[in-house]
């Protein structure tokens, strides 16, 4: 039983941490973008991200209300 539950638990932890990490990363990038909009491409490059990947991430966050809320709240924080 424990053998089954442990991987499930770990998977849950990774999944939750994954979405949170994504949002945190997105917030960090978004703040940089807002600070220096003229260097948007360069900023994404510094985060090893392409424009397409950034758009995909934005779609993913927008699609999930919890992530979108976290993103919005993160941007409002200074």
């Amino acid at each position, binding site marked *: 039983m424990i053998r089954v539950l442990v991987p499930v638990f770990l998977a849950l932890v990774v999944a939750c941490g994954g979405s949170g990490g994504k949002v945190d990363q*997105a917030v960090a990038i*978004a703040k940089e*973008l*807002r600070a220096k*909009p*003229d260097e*948007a*491409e360069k900023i*994404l490059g510094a985060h090893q991200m392409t*424009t397409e990947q*950034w*758009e995909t991430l*934005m*779609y993913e*966050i*927008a*699609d999930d*209300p919890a*992530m*979108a*809320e976290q*993103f*919005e709240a993160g*941007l409002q924080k200074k």
Partner: protein
Amino acid sequence: MRTMILHVFAIGLAAAPLAAHAAPAAGEASERAEDRRTPNERILGALALPLKAQALRKAGVGEGEVKAGLTAAKGKKLAAGDAASLLDEAAKATRDHGPVDNFGAFVQAKLDAGLRGRDLAAAIREEHAARGKGKGKSEGKGPPEGKGPAEAKIDGPPHGGPGEGKGPGERGPDDKGPDARGPEGKGPDDKGPQGKEAAEGKAPDDKGPNAAGAPEGKGPGDKEPPGKAGPEGKAADEKGAANAKNGKPNEKAKPETAGK
């Protein structure tokens, strides 16, 4: 005769490719506009997408509809910035006219039809204007916490007081039920007086004299039919509006005291 037929045939052949090019021109135009965008613009436009999705949710559009709209946009490979504009327009239209049924399906259909950019925004506005479910309807369509569309649209004093300056044309004595609220800028705030009335120990039955009597300047003793003011004690507002119409603020007091 043969010459004429040949000429017509030749003209037809020449015109066919032109017609074929004309049809997708609208779609191409918006795609070209997308192409013209610099990477910086695309990146910054995408940044707004989660925020606009949240705004749409807060405006009162159901989660399923938001998701469906996003899925449609993503499926059509719409740039995230364009999707953000789309959602922004939808949020504005929802605040103005109330949510529409099957927003996601509507967006999907319009995207399938090749609408993009301003054309799509205009279509969304039109759809909401035509089929929006009014502002502030209390059927669970509006935002639950009283935020969003209904309140955002309220013009002037929300409780229909005498100072509203609304003419009789805007609001007849026939104001009935929930429909009487939305279009005139009356939203969930209508419930303010209800709560007040409840606190004052007024029964919902008070609606009778307040709702129907006041507009015609009749006192509470008049046996006016209660009308369709609604069982939730919307009377206060009806009364207010009626007073505003007749410009007889003194009558406002009569029904209220009678109701107590």
